[in-house]
């Protein structure tokens, strides 16, 4: 027995993210009450989307996508009781997935620095290719955004991730992050400046983008 849930194959639109159109709210409330059937339905609905979010943040070649998506899904269920209706449940869950994946990237970067290894190690090999240098030659910005998330402060990295990686509007980011729209715009401005510096600091990428610095 499952709650009726429509399948999703794309990131939600603004209308679907509005509180008035939150088809998952009733389901989430049942999960909070401890309804096991509702929990399975909720996970069946959300896990595929969380998987895609984690994949976007970490890249398809990351070796631990399953484990990290599991962490994100578990954390989402644990955190449902904290959901206060800002934005939609789906939006809430996707933000948790972004934060979970970002934490993993930061942890991996810390461990890598601590190990002081050469760039070639099993984890690195999976995520190394395509390397930022190679992708710069091919004018690929996604790896640069992923690397930038490690160096930006958490609020800026979160805003950039939700905006660029997941395609959320300022209002959607503000609702899910619990800050005002002006704060979000300020964070995005700083994050985009950092993106510009990082991307255009590479002559090959600058040439490929046909943009004057």
């Amino acid at each position, binding site marked *: 027995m499952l709650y009726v849930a429509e399948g999703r194959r794309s990131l939600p639109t603004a209308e679907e993210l509005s509180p008035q159109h939150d088809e998952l709210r009733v389901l989430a409330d049942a999960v909070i009450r401890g309804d096991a059937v509702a929990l399975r339905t909720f996970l069946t609905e959300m896990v595929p989307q969380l998987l895609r979010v984690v994949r976007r943040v970490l890249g398809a070649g990351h070796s631990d996508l*399953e484990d990290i998506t599991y962490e994100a899904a578990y954390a989402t269920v644990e955190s449902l009781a904290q959901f206060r209706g800002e934005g939609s449940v789906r939006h809430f869950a996707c933000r948790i997935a972004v934060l979970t994946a970002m934490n993993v990237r930061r942890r991996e970067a810390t461990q890598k620095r601590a190990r002081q290894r050469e760039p070639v190690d099993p984890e690195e090999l999976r995520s190394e290719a395509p390397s930022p240098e190679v992708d710069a030659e091919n004018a690929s910005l996604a790896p640069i955004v992923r690397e930038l998330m490690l160096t930006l402060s958490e609020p800026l990295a979160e805003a950039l991730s939700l905006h660029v990686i997941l395609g959320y509007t300022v209002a959607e980011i503000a609702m899910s992050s619990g800050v005002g729209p002006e704060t979000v715009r300020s964070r995005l401005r700083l994050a985009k400046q950092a993106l510009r510096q990082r991307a255009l600091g590479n002559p090959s990428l600058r040439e490929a983008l046909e943009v004057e610095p």
Partner: protein
Amino acid sequence: MNDDDLSVRSRRGGLDDAAEKRFKLLLTSSREALLSHRAGLEFDAEDSLLPGDAELARRITDRVLAARPRPAAPPGRPWLKPTLGVAVLVGLAALIPLSKGRLSERPTAALAPPSPTATAPTSPLAPADAREDRAVPERGVGSAPAATVGVGPSSRSRPRPTVLSRPRSQPDTTALDESASALFARANRARRDADTATAETLYQLLQERYPASAEAIAADMALGLLALNAKRAELASKYFGSYLSRAPDGPLAADALWSRARALSLLGKSAAADESLRELLKRYPGSAYAGAARAKLPRAP
């Protein structure tokens, strides 16, 4: 509509003519807007359902359900009815690998209760200092990757790579009833902890005890990457080849083709390396490795 939202609306296909015109002006006048919009389009282009995603999602769902505490039964009313369906589904799913009698397409014991030492993940919404301090959760049962699709027939013999020449460490292998997924999880943890000797031993033990399991197939990739890291390119190439022969359409096939090309390149076998890259581009033109593969292949005269 503010400038930041123009990019988002464009990606969603929701700009009217006036907004579209304004957006084009913005892209020509703002480097930041252009770069962030292009980056967003790249992420949108990457976003697709991959083979094996459905099975992977189902496995993750089962892991979360297994890890969650069972709700208390409401007083005076048995809760068999709402959970019976779940229990039947869980029981049937657990029987699938046993009834098929051939190569398992999913990790065994994935629905077993979590390890007593397992630590449930903490929410990233916890305070930042708590987040930083939290232990890496035990990724116990069911933590095998999505190496479950495209598995070849059981009659296909598995190429035996060269026995590792490095002396083995002696990890705890006394639990003879340890499941394939638990062994695989232990090996992964050892690899992440940079204990490569233990990781190698456990992956090989997994392959000896459960040669037909999905975890054993995935272990070919892990062993290959460890060998490649140790500059043992010949051995690495054999492991990647073993994976591709056993799971030619597996979800790690693109990784295996790319990694095999790297190993062959290290051996000086550039023609074979290029062939592996061409196969990668032919079969997975949209993979994360495609751009790098094209860059490495010699351009046509």
